[in-house]
């Protein structure tokens, strides 16, 4: 088995999930200038909801086709996460729209803690195992092995990300989103209901987060009320790495971060003569972030356009 190819594959899988979550951060930042630190928890709620639905369906309709089960669970998770994001924005962020920037930021951190605790109360403190709906098949690819779940993760992510880019760049809704992110005042003068566009932006990000949560749950087969925290931080890192506010940047940043982490984790033992192990993989994300910000403070794809008044 080719270890390098294997790490690249693992990195792509991990990176796809980071990218999905990073898109939510970057869209909200682009439109409001707000870092929505509760976004990672939305991912967790998505995973938890899907698991709850799957467990219920398995016990009530044991004969149901696994594909239908996961589809229903996915839809439920997306619906729950979108509504959650809608209400978070409406109740917590909108009243602070004109407040100093620190206020919504602290509110976001507060929401994040609140959601973790609510999840803990509902689903308990223990790690929950995700039942296996499909028999895992393993394929050989360029000397690396890849599971059916991993293939599924890469495909779903690619489809969703392309879909989002198409929406943002080629539809009327997307134009309105881009216009709103440039100037809410002028967007209003075009007849755009700016509040509605902001709500929609939060909801699209949350939909992607729900899917990301399910994909992670499927990949690691375990979920926990605190799973969104580190993931959210990494995805935020990915968004900053790519240039926050830039959709393509979030995808690029997510994939890069996944690759760096995976390759780093695979080789750190050899590089340090066994002194540091692969559990240091989290360090890579943040080292890379610091290095990029030192040399390119706007991120890899951030704001190359010079704007005239």
């Amino acid at each position, binding site marked *: 088995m080719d270890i390098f190819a294997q790490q690249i594959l693992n990195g792509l899988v991990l990176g796809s999930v980071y990218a999905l979550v990073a898109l939510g951060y970057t869209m909200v930042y682009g439109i409001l200038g707000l870092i929505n630190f509760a976004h990672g928890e939305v991912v967790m709620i998505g995973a938890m909801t899907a698991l709850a639905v799957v467990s219920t369906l398995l016990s009530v309709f044991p004969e149901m086709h696994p594909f239908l089960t996961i589809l229903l669970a996915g839809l439920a998770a997306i619906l729950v996460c979108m509504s959650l994001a809608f209400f978070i924005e409406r109740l917590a962020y909108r009243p602070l729209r004109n407040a100093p920037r620190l206020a919504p930021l602290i509110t976001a951190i507060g929401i994040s803690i609140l959601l973790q605790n609510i999840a803990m109360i509902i689903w308990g403190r223990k790690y929950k195992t995700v039942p296996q709906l499909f028999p895992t098949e393993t394929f050989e690819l360029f000397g690396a092995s890849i599971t059916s779940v991993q293939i599924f993760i890469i495909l779903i992510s690619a489809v969703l990300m392309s879909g989002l880019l198409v929406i943002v760049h080629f539809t009327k809704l997307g*134009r*309105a989103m881009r216009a709103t992110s*440039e100037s809410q*005042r*002028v967007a209003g003068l*075009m007849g755009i*209901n*700016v509040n509605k566009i902001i709500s929609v932006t939060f909801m699209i990000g949350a939909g992607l987060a729900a899917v990301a949560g399910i994909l992670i749950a499927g990949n690691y087969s375990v979920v926990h009320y605190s799973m969104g925290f580190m993931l959210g931080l990494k995805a935020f890192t990915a968004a900053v790495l790519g240039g926050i506010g830039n959709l393509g940047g979030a995808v690029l940043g997510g994939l890069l971060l996944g690759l760096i982490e995976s390759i780093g984790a695979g080789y750190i033992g050899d590089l340090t003569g066994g002194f540091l192990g692969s559990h240091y993989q989290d360090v890579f994300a943040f080292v890379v972030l610091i290095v990029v910000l030192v040399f390119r403070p706007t991120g890899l794809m951030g704001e190359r356009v010079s704007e005239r008044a």
Partner: protein
Amino acid sequence: MSFLEAQSLDVRYGGIRAVRGVDIRVEEGETVALIGANGAGKSSMLNAIAGVLPHTGSVYFNNVDLSYRPVFDRVKRGISMVPEGRGVFGRLTVEENLLMGAYLGNSQQEQDTDLKMMYEFFPRLKERRRQTGGTLSGGEQQMLAIGRALMARPKLLLLDEPSMGLAPIMVEKIFEVIRGVSQTGVTILLVEQNARLALESSQRAYVMESGELSITGESRELLHSPEIRRSYLGGGD
């Protein structure tokens, strides 16, 4: 009731009262100028009518009370504004900027016709339709902003300082466009520091001073009024 009627309009910024109980009326088809010194409250007035700034007092348009309606609803009812500083979307292409103007609907067919018309009106914009708005010169951006507002097929066009920051030749060109738009029957309320141009391009004018109306009248007469000449037209001649 007039086409547009603002009654005892008041605009406040924090503790400052920028507009103090101003009444203005605009009849259908008219071009009306709002002139005055820097900080007289002209722009605040316009922004209040557009719904961008919160205000007290009422704004009636086409016999509908718009006082508590949000901006986008006023746009839906036919009020479009070209904001001060143009407000072109720098990262959207010229064509996307124009299409934003037609956001509220008009059929695809109407949009295509309007787009074609704008490109005939402003050939410069056609040449640059795939460039982003941020790469245009100030004059081109002003044309784009006016074209974008016209894409909404407005009944009332609010223009906030269209000559600001433009070269004299470009200012002439922009005002030619404004007169052309007026001839197509669009009602215009124009805020402008360049009082001479504003008076020459309008039928009636209001003069604002420290948040209040000071003088009102026919533009042609105001052009020859000694008081106006002294204060706003650079005196002398």
